[in-house]
């Protein structure tokens, strides 16, 4: 199980590099969030943190993969961001542990197609909307999308209500709010 989820993280990074996507820590966290939401429980617990849904265990695994040189994480001196690319030992996982990659191939492509070109800010908002919606859906018998919007606005005041509404409408089909 552990190697499988480390492999999937490495595979996301590898496919992003192939597509020339700019991948940082925020994007990677959110892509794994959406992967877990779409196909199988990878065992990560996500909580709302500085940039929306965040898993401390996932952050540790990303750092471990950096230490193992399966990923390469470089600081973006121009801002707060990071660049994550495949490390010199990336193949140790992605070339040898193919089963989880094959099993999740379609989901991985959906994630990359949906979010691969999004900025960190945009994916943060999309993930926060999705998370808030799923919490309200699980907890209450009835809720409105306006309530989702208000809850997201309270958590992310740097986004306007219109921006949130637009992001809700723009959520890719597999993750659209129902």
């Amino acid at each position, binding site marked *: 199980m552990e190697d499988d989820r480390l492999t999937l993280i490495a595979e996301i990074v590898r496919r992003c590099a192939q597509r020339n996507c700019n991948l940082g820590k925020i994007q990677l966290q959110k892509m794994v969030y959406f992967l877990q939401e779409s196909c199988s429980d990878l065992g990560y*617990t*996500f*909580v*709302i943190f*500085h*940039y929306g849904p965040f898993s*401390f265990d996932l*952050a*540790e695994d990303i*750092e*471990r*993969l*950096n*230490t*193992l*040189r*399966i990923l390469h994480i470089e*600081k973006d001196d121009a801002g*707060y961001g990071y660049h994550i690319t495949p*490390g*010199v*030992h*990336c193949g*140790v*996982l992605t070339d*040898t542990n193919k089963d989880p990659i094959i099993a999740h191939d379609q989901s991985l492509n959906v994630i990359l197609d949906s979010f691969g070109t999004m900025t960190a800010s945009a994916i943060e908002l999309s993930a926060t909307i999705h*998370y*808030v919606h799923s*919490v*309200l859906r*699980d907890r209450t018998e009835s809720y409105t999308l306006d309530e989702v919007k208000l*809850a997201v606005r*309270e*958590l*992310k*005041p*740097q*986004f306007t209500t219109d921006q949130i509404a637009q992001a809700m409408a723009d959520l890719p089909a597999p993750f659209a709010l129902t």
Partner: protein
Amino acid sequence: MTDYVYPGAEHTRFGHSLGVMQFASDIFDTLRSKDESVLMKALDARSDDLNVYRQRLRLAALLHDVGHAPFSHASEEILPTGITHELQTLEIIRSKYVADIIDACSATTGVKAEQVAKFFEPRTIDRKVLFLKPIIDGELDADKMDYLIRDSIFTGVHYGKFDHERLVASLCVIENSEQQGGMILGIEEGGVHALEALVLARYFMFTQVYFHRARRAYDMHLIGLLKDMGIKYPAEVEKYLEWDDRKVIDLASQHNDNRHARAIVERKHFKEALHTPDHTNGEQRRCFQFLWKDICKTFDSNKLFHDEAKKASHKFSRIDFFVRKTDGGLSKIEEMSKIVKDLAPIEQYRIYADQSIRSEVKEFCRVFCRDNGILF
């Protein structure tokens, strides 16, 4: 089971919980004294209400570990699937054992049990809880501050000490950053070195205490004993609360026929036969996995176990903390501290063997590494 390595480490979780409550109170009081209006804005509260939020925080801090299994993190594997000590903490706070007491005092405190329980709900979107919770469970929190200093004092390992007074005094509320929105706990530039000291304390206490090879051996014997007995901690609160450290040690004393029980009682723990570097790379990790498979085919697997840093408690991890600079600007701690930026988490793997076969296992590892050109 740290006291098996450091005999002075007989401090209790209750003492720690009182310490966390004190640190949480100090942090809250610091934030309030610096700028009460910002704290009121963060909590959407009036000045009078802040005392109630303080009390909620104190109770959450006091109870934050009440759901731990015996020997804390060491036996978390024995919890039922899907249950964590945090979830058990939530259930215990909501149970008659705790809720009745908190609710009975609510006329005086202004705090209801459910308001304390909210701190431990697994998926919260409550903005006020999300602001307060990192004070007791975050990257720079009261929990870490207390256990590092407390464990340092009681084990006699001095690495865990840092200037906690300076650190707490440097904390502040950072608001409306374009980067992350909302309000969060941050640190003033003057506290950066105190923060670095805490980061170093975490790193060294992990290597010297929490991931100490003998201590980890006893952790694994503990889990081995409980698994051999077929024990799973019950999820139901009343039965769960019947389990404590004494009950587990009594089990070990009563089952001297069990190899793990004997290891614990007679202090004949499995000993380390091999370890990889502190920062193992991916290729070395793969080699270790092959080595482990071969060792298990060659020797009695009942006389072996393997460990890795990931499994130990209080793992060192990178922090992502905002700093308010003296010019009023914001920075991430990594940009202001090379220590925080460059210090990498430990990624080490170990093989342990029963003392009766340890020499052979060590020799097997040496030959395997030589024949496969592996340098650990």
